[in-house]
Each structure stands twice: as C-alpha cells, then as structure tokens.
C-alpha cells in the first residue's frame, strides 16, 4: 500500500521518542507524569518493532506490538489503582514525598 520507509528514519524516531520518555521519567516529580513517560517509552519500543517488521517483510513485529499494547493496558490499570490508593493516603502525587523506605 505504501512505499517503503527507510529503517534508519524509523529508528531515529524511535530513539528520540525513547529519550524523551526517559527524560520525563527521571526529571518529573509527579507520579502521573512518570506513568505517562513510561507509556511513551513503551510506544517508542512499539515503533521500533513495527519498523523492523516492515523492513524485514514479516508480520511478527505487529504481533508483538499487539501483545505489548494489551499488556500496557493491564499495567496501566493496575498502576493507576495503586496510584489511587497511595493518593488517598498521602494527599500528594509528589514522588519525593513517598519515601518511607529510606535509611
């Protein structure tokens, strides 16, 4: 249907997206922001997978992405449930303040 995209482009995009995701995960203090950054990282991985699948002419990449999306959904729901539970208790979403396991 569409012409071939050079794999280099795809990987560049994926890499950039991943870096953005990591930056968000490390530099933000809000728990929600960290969650979202993790989702971004996962999507970057998905992009790379689809790109390789297309480049190698196989559908395996799409299959894997299918599973990843499903798992991401499951993980997001559980994570949000935890987030809800913590927020009810502590009234804050600042990760810095959730530090009972310190020395």
């Amino acid at each position: 249907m569409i012409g071939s995209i050079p794999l280099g482009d795809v990987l560049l995009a994926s890499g950039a997206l991943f870096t953005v995701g990591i930056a968000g995960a490390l530099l933000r203090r809000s728990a929600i922001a960290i969650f979202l950054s993790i989702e971004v990282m996962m999507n970057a991985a998905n992009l790379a997978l689809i790109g390789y699948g297309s480049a190698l002419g196989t559908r395996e990449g799409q299959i894997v992405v299918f599973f990843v999306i499903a798992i991401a959904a499951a993980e997001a729901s559980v994570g949000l449930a935890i987030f809800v539970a913590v927020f009810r208790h502590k009234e804050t979403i600042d990760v810095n303040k959730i530090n009972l396991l310190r020395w």
Partner: protein
Amino acid sequence: MTFPLWLIPALPLAGFIVNGLLGKKLGKSFVTAVGTGSVGLATAVAFARILPFLSGDHAPVVERIASWISAGGFSADIALRLDPLSALMTSFVTFVGFLIHVYSVGYMRHDETEAGYARYFAYLNLFMFAMLTLVLAQNFLLLFVGWEGVGLCSYLLIGYYYDRQYAADAGKKAFIVNRIGDFGFLLGMFGLFSLFDSLDFDRVFPAAAADPAKYAPYLTVVCLCLFLGAVGKSAQVPLYVWLPDAMAGPTPVSALIHAATMVTAGVYMVARCNVLFRLSPEAMGVVAVIGGVTAIFAGIIAVAQNDIKKVLAYSTVSQLGYMFLACGVGAYVAGMFHVMTHAFFKACLFLGSGSVIHAMGGEQDMRKMGGLKSKLPVTYRTFLIATLAIAGIPPLAGFFSKDAILAGVFEHQRYVLWGIALFTAGLTAFYMFRLVSLTFEGSFRGTPEQEHHLHESPRSMTAPLVILAALSVIGGWIGLPKVLGENADRFGAFLSPILLPLASAADVAEHGLSGGTEWLLMGVSVAAAAAGLLLARSWYVKQQGRPAEAIAASFPAAYRLVADKFRVDELYDALVVRPFDWLARMLWKVVDVLIIDGVLNAAAFLVELVGDLLRFLQTGNVRNYALTLFLGLVALMLFVIGAF
C-alpha cells in the same frame, strides 16, 4: 588351668573401675577388699604363670589379645609377652605392690574420708594396671601406653592431697618433667618405626641383631632419644627434680611408685632394648656417664637433708644412677639385679619411714626425732636390716647386686666411673646410717606431745615391713658371684637369654675377671661400706652430730649449697620456667589480644564502616532508583559498544 596373661593387668584395672565408681558409697571395708584383693589375685595369677616358666626352658610366651592398629604396612597388636625379663619385673611388681596395698590399709584408714580412701585405692590399682601393662607389653606402643599410664597415676597420687598447694605443684612438676622425657621416647619410637617398620620386640631386636652394619649408624640417635625417656621416668640428671618433690604424696605411694616400680621402668626399658644399645657404644657411654654422675650427685645432696623422706628420695635417685651405670657399661644383668634388690629394701625403707612419720604424728624432720628404737622395735629392726642391705653389707641382698655392678664396671675397664661408684657406695652407707642414727638412736628431741603419741604401727603395717626385710636379706642369694661357684649366678643364667647375640663383633667383649680380682673388689666395696657406716655411727651416735655441725659451720656457703640441693630447681626456674612464662604471656597479650583479636575487630569495624557508608544509597526515593537503573543501562551500553 593356665590363666591368660591379660588377667594380670586386668584384675587391678577392674579394681580401679569398681572402687572408682562405687567405692565411696560402699564403705572402707569394701574398698579395702576390692583394692587389695584385686592386686592379691593378680599376684597369684602372676606366680601361677611364672613358677612353671622358671622350671621350663624359658622360651618367651607371647599372648595376642587383639589387633590395635593395622594401617598399611604397620601393625601393632595388644599383645603380652612373658620372658625372663618381664617375668622378673612382674614378679616383684605384683608382690611388692601387694604388700604396699596391705600397708596402705593401715596407713590411710583412719585419717581419710570415705571418698578419699576410695580414690586412693582406685588410683593405686590403676597404677598397677599401667605398670603391669608396661612390663608385659610385647611392643613399644603398648609399653608406651603403660609408660604414660604410670606417669598419669604418679601425678594423681602425688597430688592426692590436692588441697595442699605444694602437693598439687609437685604432681604437676612430676608430670611435666616426665613429659620432656616422653617426648624423647616418642622420637625414639618414630626412629624405630622408620628403621624397622615395626614396633614389635620380636621384629625389631632380631632384625637389629642380625644386621648390625645396616642399623648401627642410626641407632645412636634412636637410643639417645629412648634414653631421654628413661632419664625423665627414672629421675636421672638433669630430669630428676620431680622425685624429691614427689615426696608430698602419701608415703606408701612413695614406696611403690618412686622406689620400687615406676622409676625402674626406665631401667627395664634400657635392658629390654639392650640389643639396640649394644650396637651403639656412644649411647651406652652416655648412659653410663649419666648414671654415674647422677649417683654421686644425688648422694652428696642426700647427706645434707633433714627430712627423712627427702633423704630416701635422693637415695633412690642415686641408686637408679647405679642401675643405669651398670647398663651403660654392658652389665645389664647386674643392673636388673639391682632393680630387684632395690625394690625390696627401698620399699622397706619407705614403708618404715611411713611407720615413723605415722608414729610422730606427721613429723618428718629427723632433727626432731631420736631414740625411737625402743618405742618402735619392729620398725627399727626392719629398717636397720634394709639399711644394711642398701649400704652393701654382706650377706644381704644389696651387697650382691651392688658388687655385681662394681665388678661389671671394673671388668669393662671404666676405672673412673668405678672410682665414683665406689665413693658413692661409701657415701650411701654414710647418709643411710646418719638417717638411722638420727631417727632411732640417741635420745628423743621432739616435743612432749609427740613423745606421748609414739607407738608401734598396727600389724597391717608391720607385716609387710617384716616380709620386705626378709627379702632384703635373702634376695641376693640367687645371684652370687662366680667366685663362689660356677653355677652360683642363677639370676644371671636366667636373664641371659634377653641378651641376644649380635651378628658381628660389635658387641662389647666380655673380659672376665680373675678370681683374685673379684675377691679384691668385693673386699674394697665392703670396706667402703663399713667405713661409711662407722663414720656415721661415730659422728651421730657417739658425738651427737657435733663433727657434722663443725664442718657445716666452717664451710657455711658449701653447706648451704648442698642443703639447697645445689639450687638446681632455682636454676631451672630461671632458665626454663621464666622464659616460657614470658613467652606465654607474650603470646597472650600481644599475639592473641592485640594481633588476632585486633584483626578480627578491625574486620568487623570495616564491615560496619562500609555499611554505614553504603546505606546512604537507600534514599527511599523511587526517582533515585530509576536514575541508578538508567545509569547502569548507560554504562552497560558503553561497555558493550566498546567505548571503554
């Protein structure tokens, strides 16, 4: 029926177990019955085996009980041997031991508690077991078991009055000094094992006798090591220092262990190993010299002692020197002869002194005695007979054995040693009669309470004295010198099979003395003895000790030196004990506390320090952990990509 040999040591062992476990609950009569009965039965069994042996062909009998070690090419069995030498030792060890057990009943009965009485007899029985194992052993290993056992019992019995500091110290001293000797004995055994691949008498001695050239070069060292053991066990110079202190134990213990049996184990061992020693003239020379030196050295000290038991202790050391002197010049039979006669008269002397101490209510200082011959007639007469025997007055036992030794030394042309031995014989007569004179003659010099308490000892104590005195008289008649008849020396004939013939002329040749020389020597020794006797009587009976006091006053420093036993103990203390003490203290304070504990504590401190530093990684902050993960990832990637 023939009783098995193992019954002889086993009966006293059974006595030890029974009295040790049950004695204090079952009363003194029970303890007496078991304690003396076990030894009495052992004596009976021993004689039941020995008497037929005497009339037979004297072929050695070996009875194997069990296999003990069997490892590779080496095996050592629990096996007992009956041959002339072990039969001789067993006979008087059991008999004299039995007499002393009987004597102990009277001596210990009234002063001790039930527990103490039971403990005494248990240890005494254990000693008999160990000593009999020693003399009946068929191999060096079993002999060593007995050797250690008698050392242990010596410690236990010397320290019998364990609540007295000096008694406990004496026990320890005996054990430790013995240990030094035992170290030599062990080295000797190792040497024997490496040379002969066996420790069995029937393998080692014939092998050595058959091939002297092969073994002789190494045997000097081995024999000297074994002799070191004998020096410790038989209290020769320089390891004699424990024996005088050992007088802290009960007097029957001194009689049994330190006069008649344990201390003679060294002589027995040397006689047993005569094949090895005869192949090493150097070792024999050392034995002879040490024997001679010990004899005169101890004799001199004995002259200036005032404690009755100390005089007898140094006398024992001196007489043991005689025995080693005999073995050292090659007169092994004479040495063993003296072992036997010495057992009789020395035991009699010690038991007699026990009788005196008992009568004096515990006093042992001769200066406070005197005139006891009228109050203790039996004790006096037996003591006098035994003194005549030890002085070497014919026709008592001591004369024949001592004369045999002197003749042997002269025969082997060791004239210097002969002179020393002759002088010591005179010295022996002198100090022994000094003892008799101070104790029994003259008038009583003690307190009125003591005088009131003086009484003859009960029958259980005097009967053994009488028997031993009788043996001191007739005991020498089985070994008469050749001048009195070609077959007069039945003792020598009996023992001669243990001197295996050597395959080469390496043996010290028998010289043989002419009849005239023998008579001359006999006369000289009797003269020396008589001189000592008369001098002692003159000084201490007629002149009440004044000449001795005069000499002591004119040479005060010399007298102090002799009376302080040449300060050998103090010398050892400075040379050996203190450095060891310092070393031990050093090892404790520096090595153990500072270094080892320090290292451990430092290690623990280090761990704690690292932990204290590392725990700051646990911030509890998820972001930090995420960062750490990411940093790790980056590092890993760098590594993989090869940027490092």
